[in-house]
């Protein structure tokens, strides 16, 4: 007869000395843990509630400008610095960690309409309504010191005067060239006082200009004739153009998938396009109630932030039709520019009330260095919330956002309008010959012509 009985020796299962770690034994057998789904559901509810309790997205405001902020620029090599230009011509360099001005760049006589930094971070290019382009040297060492007084001001290295006011500027990757948008698209070099190349397609002003981060010779522009055009600098000619129903205020390329870009439009939607297929948008992002003024992608390429004329900042996932997050404050007026910080954790908005505001991109994120156990706990909470977020109790908590009354009402109105349009269309379809009334998808409807 062979017998064996369970016998555990205490040495294996208890710790020898008080400074030893307690050993943890796992048995993943589902039969020893009962009602797993219900426990997970309760944990999802608790995770959603905790998320809401810890949601404090506003970090701080940077004040100093005396007029509304029109543009911002960031450089990936310096995470803590951001440039902002205002409507009275003042440009400032801010340190995000201390939220103080590091350096001022006075000089522009009118509004600063575009700011961009060269790839190595040493040269700041600014353009404005006074028809000038100014190149400034960036004080790199000062950026690293945290407590620096804000009285430093710099002189422009170069000032190039041109024939027309400029609306936007963007720098080419790893090169000395930058492009401006005004009457047409001009390609400049740091050392020349006149543009190397000039393109004109149509007679309308070019409102925004963006170089592709993956293919440095490709340029996307948007003009006030409601068009978006692609230029290729190697071929020396504009490549393609399509016209939409309303004007695009700003464009941003997806840094992780450089064939895609998203356009922030006047009709309160953002449209994502694949630059190879201009006939239709890949996604329509709808949630703003007023014109979208600016857009910037996160360095992960998975979400983007938009600032709109309706006084809110929204964060959208790159492939979803609706927002993930909305930020608003009573004191924040029309948002004219937004930037996603280069580490993907923060969002900076510049608005009409002369302040730059720093927000967390994930509202309930714990900042600072997390222990691995804390990190695992946060990941678990995210995962369990995602598993049950379709159930009504959890969905109600996860989706809830407090909106200011005007935005809530405007949103409701827009939904009602869309709903009534849809019903009308359904009825027309139902009362006419099958197949005679065809509605194009929204992605195609907004594009009028492709050239």
């Amino acid at each position: 007869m062979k017998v064996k009985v369970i016998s555990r020796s205490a040495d294996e299962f208890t710790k020898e000395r008080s400074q030893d770690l307690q050993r943890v034994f796992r048995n993943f057998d589902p039969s020893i843990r009962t009602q797993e789904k219900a426990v997970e559901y309760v944990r999802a509810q608790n995770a959603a509630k905790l998320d809401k309790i810890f949601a404090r997205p506003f970090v701080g405001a940077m004040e100093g400008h005396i007029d509304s902020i029109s543009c911002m620029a960031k450089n990936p090599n310096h995470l803590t610095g951001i440039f902002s230009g205002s409507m009275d011509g003042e440009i400032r360099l801010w340190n995000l960690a201390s939220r103080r001005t590091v350096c001022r760049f006075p000089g522009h006589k009118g509004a600063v309409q575009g700011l961009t930094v060269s790839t190595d971070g040493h040269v700041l290019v600014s353009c404005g309504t006074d028809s000038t382009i100014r190149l400034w040297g960036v004080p790199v060492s000062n950026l690293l010191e945290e407590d620096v007084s804000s009285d430093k001001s710099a002189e422009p290295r170069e000032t190039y005067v041109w024939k027309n006011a400029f609306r936007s500027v963007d720098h080419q990757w790893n090169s000395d060239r930058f492009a401006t948008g005004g009457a047409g698209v001009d390609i400049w070099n740091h050392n020349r006082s006149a543009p190397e190349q000039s393109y004109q397609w149509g007679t309308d002003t070019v409102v925004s200009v963006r170089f592709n981060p993956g293919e440095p010779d490709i340029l996307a522009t948007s003009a006030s004739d409601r068009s978006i055009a692609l230029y290729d600098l190697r071929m020396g000619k504009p490549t393609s153009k399509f016209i939409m129903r309303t004007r695009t205020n700003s464009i941003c390329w997806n840094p992780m998938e450089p064939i895609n870009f998203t356009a922030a439009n006047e009709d309160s939607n953002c449209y994502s396009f694949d630059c190879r297929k201009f006939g239709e948008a890949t996604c329509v992002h709808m949630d703003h109630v007023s014109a979208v003024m600016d857009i910037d992608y996160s360095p992960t390429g998975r979400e983007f932030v938009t600032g709109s004329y309706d006084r809110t900042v929204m964060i959208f996932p790159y492939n979803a039709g609706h927002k993930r997050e909305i930020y608003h404050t009573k004191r924040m007026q029309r948002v004219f520019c937004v930037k996603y910080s280069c580490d993907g954790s923060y969002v900076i908005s510049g608005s009409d009330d002369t302040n730059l505001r720093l927000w967390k991109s994930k509202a309930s994120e714990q900042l600072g260095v997390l222990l691995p156990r804390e990190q695992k706990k946060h990941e678990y909470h995210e995962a369990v919330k995602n598993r049950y977020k379709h159930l009504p109790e959890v969905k109600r908590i996860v989706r809830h956002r407090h909106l200011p009354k005007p935005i809530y009402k405007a949103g409701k109105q827009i939904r009602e309008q869309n709903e009534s349009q849809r019903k009308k269309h359904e009825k027309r379809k139902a009362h006419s010959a099958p197949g005679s009334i065809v509605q194009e998808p929204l992605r195609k409807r907004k594009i009028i012509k492709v050239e």
Partner: protein
Amino acid sequence: MGVKQDGGTIDIVPAMEQEKISDELDKRVKKFLRGAEANLEGLKDKKLKGQLAVREELYGKSAHAAAKAEKWLLPSEGGYLETEGIEKTWMIKQESIAREVDILSSRSQYDIVLPDLGPYTLDFTSSGRYMAVGGRKGHLAILDMKNMSLIREIQVRETVRDVAFLHNELFFAAAQKKYPYIYNRDGTELHCLKEHGAVLRLQFLKNHFLLASVNKFGHLRYQDVTMGRMIGSYRTGLGRTDVMQVNPYNGVVALGHSGGKVSMWKPTSSAPLLQRLCHKGPISAMAFHPNGHLMATAGKEKKIMLWDLRKLQDEPIQTLPGHASTLDFSQKGLLARGCNSYVQILGDFSGSQNYENYMGHGMIKGYQIGKVLFRPYEDVLGIGHSMGWSSILIPGSGEPNFDTWVANPFETSKQRREKEVHSLLDKLPPETIMLNPTELGTVKTQRRKEKRTKEEKEAEMEAALEAVKGIEPKKKTKGRNKPSKRAKKKQEMIVSAKRPFLEQQKKEEEQATRKKQKVSEQVEQPTALQRFVRKKAAT
């Protein structure tokens, strides 16, 4: 799985063995999969389909990882009893086991004789380390089974009918003569639960922190022990019963009644979830298998029946002969049956849910067995009888590997405190108790039958008419086959085919007009006719 070396391939594991390993791993993987793969063919939403496909793949990977961990990383192995030659397992006595087994384990075999204080009932904590003992004449005690020491004993000088631990060893409840009381580990009386009345049986639902009790009048009560709120108090209507068990799989409380009925209850409804006639005589004992699929019931007509709870057929899976005043399932699925002074252990070794005799233990004649309970995570069976309590070794009954975060027999006080807080955060609301706990989070299918559209109804009528017209009437002879009569017969057949459809239409129209009438009756009638207006029943 092979390893390529210079100069030809040399497999470290030969092909046959590789197959065996992968088969074994597949079986284990199935255990961790928690159901079949979802069928994503019917989904039209491509984005959702892609996301779900990724998730399904992740589930497969995690089940695979868990299977590998189970195979290689678990510290302990289970117990077993193997006989050689003509020996049978049920002939082996506890003394022979004691000789073969190490000293530490043989300490678990003992008899404690306390003849004056009445039949004893016992309860273990979920980790199996602490035991609460209650004698009928008022003796309550808590023991630490690891050190075999008595923590505290008190004499309450009242009848004690049942003992139950709450969520950990610090609190236990005793069903005393008039009311149940909750005591501390030090024996201090913490609460007197007056609302319950004279309780016969107590059960604690771990995940929900609910104390369930059934009293002398057959009233079932659920009380939340965290805040003291009474969740439900229901009159079962089936009389006095002292057979009550909780199904650990879904948290449902089952009562066995003197008419042979088994009823299952949940705290949020006053009607039972399920009522089945299981036995011809009164039910004397009940037990649930930890996986939630098997229920064993014993009736006073000397029959023990095993039921499959998933299928709920009219016939039990297996019927065994014999009395049982108490039944219990172990973690590994062994069934213990106690009657008079004999304990029989039955086991299902072929995997086909066919229980056969495994072991037995006879106590001194005169010791009436009141309760048998397997100790969790140990190969030990605790027996409470009229002269005290005993403990015997049953190899292969306990789960050898515990999970620190589920139940830890080597818990320190710090771990116990943390676990208490975590389990309170994970406390399930009483609404989550249902017969099938995997239903949570699923989509409810539409109950209402879809109304057939007008076209479908017309199509049906036409089809019936065609069928009738196609039938050839019988040719009659002797002058009865006149054409006028044939035509009349055909007309009659068509009318009788149409009649059910027309009647259905008429009924629906009547209902519609009645509804319209009801709505129009809201119109104000002149005052003289007010008394004839149909009044709505007061809500």
